[in-house]
């Protein structure tokens, strides 16, 4: 039996609301009573958008810069994690034992080590080495010195910080790929055996079978968990502030250090993360219900 959700409020709902408000008020009074803290909310908007007198235009300040970097990182590492995770998911369902074991090991290692530790290890052992090998520092500085770098800056922000951004993207993507891999594996395994047999029986190669029959169906099925994972990725991206990637959390730490507005800055940042993640989840929900009209 399905119960429909009530839309109107009951007296009990008012009671619950009153208790919650009272609780918050008590906490609030205690903080303001004991802390002797001078709230400076009026200064926060300035750290999002700042009026540049010299240029005569609005420019992004610390918090918005951080937010934009967070969005960039989320997009790039989301794409990278999807690619790696898809490969990992396929490897997990491989008939080859060695491939399967390697994928399993990768997954279990990542699942059983705290994310912060994973981030440091990946950072020092992988992305640092990779950046050194590719000579990325010099390359990025070269680009930064060029005149026409608007396109580069649009995609990657300050080019002098490019290597750091890329490390962040790689670290985060490697970390998330393990979870994406599990989601993809579940998707692949949910495709009935008959689908693959039918593909094989018309002579399709393994690659074509995966590419045209299995993956399109599997990815469509796992779209909801994949979008949830993407939202997790946005939240997890705050961890890479530890390796000095200048995303929202890092910028907030900076802001707090220079202005001492501990509460305002962190609450503002929390709101920014919330808006971003909640917005994404509303968007994904809408896309999902919108896509329901197509036949399976």
């Amino acid at each position, binding site marked *: 039996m399905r119960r429909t959700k009530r839309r109107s409020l009951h007296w009990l709902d008012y009671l619950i609301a009153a208790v919650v408000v009272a609780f918050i008020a008590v906490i609030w009074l205690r903080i303001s009573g004991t802390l002797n803290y001078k709230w400076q909310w009026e200064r926060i908007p300035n750290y999002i958008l700042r009026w540049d007198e010299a240029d005569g235009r609005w420019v992004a300040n610390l918090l918005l810069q951080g937010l934009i970097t967070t969005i960039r990182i989320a997009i790039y590492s989301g794409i990278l994690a999807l690619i790696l995770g898809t490969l990992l998911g396929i490897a997990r369902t491989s008939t080859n034992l060695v491939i399967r074991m390697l994928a399993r090991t990768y997954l279990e290692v990542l699942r059983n080590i705290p994310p912060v530790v994973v981030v440091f290890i990946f950072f020092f052992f992988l992305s640092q080495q990779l950046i050194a090998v590719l000579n990325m520092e010099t390359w990025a500085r070269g680009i930064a010195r060029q005149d026409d770098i608007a396109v580069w800056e649009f995609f990657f922000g300050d080019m002098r910080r490019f290597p750091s951004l890329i490390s962040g993207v790689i670290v985060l993507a490697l970390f998330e790929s393990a979870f994406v891999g599990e989601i993809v594996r579940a998707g692949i395994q949910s495709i*009935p055996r008959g689908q693959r*047999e*039918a593909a094989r029986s018309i002579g399709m190669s393994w690659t074509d079978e995966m590419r045209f029959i299995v993956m399109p169906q599997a990815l469509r099925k796992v779209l909801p968990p994949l979008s949830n994972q993407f939202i997790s990725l946005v939240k997890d991206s705050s961890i890479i502030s530890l390796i000095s990637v200048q995303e929202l959390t890092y910028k907030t730490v900076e802001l707090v250090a220079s202005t001492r507005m501990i509460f305002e800055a962190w609450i503002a940042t929390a709101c920014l993360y919330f808006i971003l993640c909640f917005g994404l989840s509303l968007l994904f929900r809408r896309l999902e219900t919108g896509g329901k009209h197509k036949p399976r």
Partner: protein
Amino acid sequence: MTAAPPIIELCHVDKYFGPFQALTDINFAVRQGERVVVCGPSGSGKSTMIRCINRLEEHDAGTITVDGILLGDDTKDIRAVRQDVGMVFQQFNLFPHLTVLENLTIGPIRVRKMDKAAAEALGRKYLDRVHIPEQADKFPSQLSGGQQQRVAIARSLCMEPKIMLFDEPTSALDPEMISEVLEAMVELANSGMTMVCVTHEMGFARRVADKMVFMEAGRIVETAPPGEFFTAPKSDRARMFLDQILEH
């Protein structure tokens, strides 16, 4: 007897699932253009045997030769065989994310490397052949079971195979849809296709079969022309089986 070598030949084939022996010493040959109907009780290994022919199952002993190619571990050989051998499944196994026409053209386009226009022309030709040209742009889930199975037959035919395998193509269908699928199969038989059908549709077997194969517990118990098989089966097991299914 003509001397043409058989297009399918199984010699002393054994097949195990773990410790369980699903096929024991299967010897079986099909000549070009021959229509063979395989029957037998549930679990007797009928599916396993015909799935070995296009190597959806790997046999463990003996040899299987299809159109001159010896089935082994060579993936090229296996794919070559599969292009020549169409298969129709009990559960249709149409690709649900593709339209009917795309279901038909994906093989020709991806495997035979045909261009899209030619593949679509081919697809429409075979949809016509199974009498559902108007369903080309629907998705499989929008069709009835009988229509889906006919699409599955057309999908196999689009690869222009030399041999068609059918694994109980009508057992998942509602009774009123069985005849439309059987009709498509009879027409195919009349066009001279080499066919191996696992089915319990004895009316169909009487009409088209050149040879009946009766299986029991992983062995071929009896092979006979349909006239002989239906009127005077040699083995008791076959007689009992026939009594059972012809009662209905």
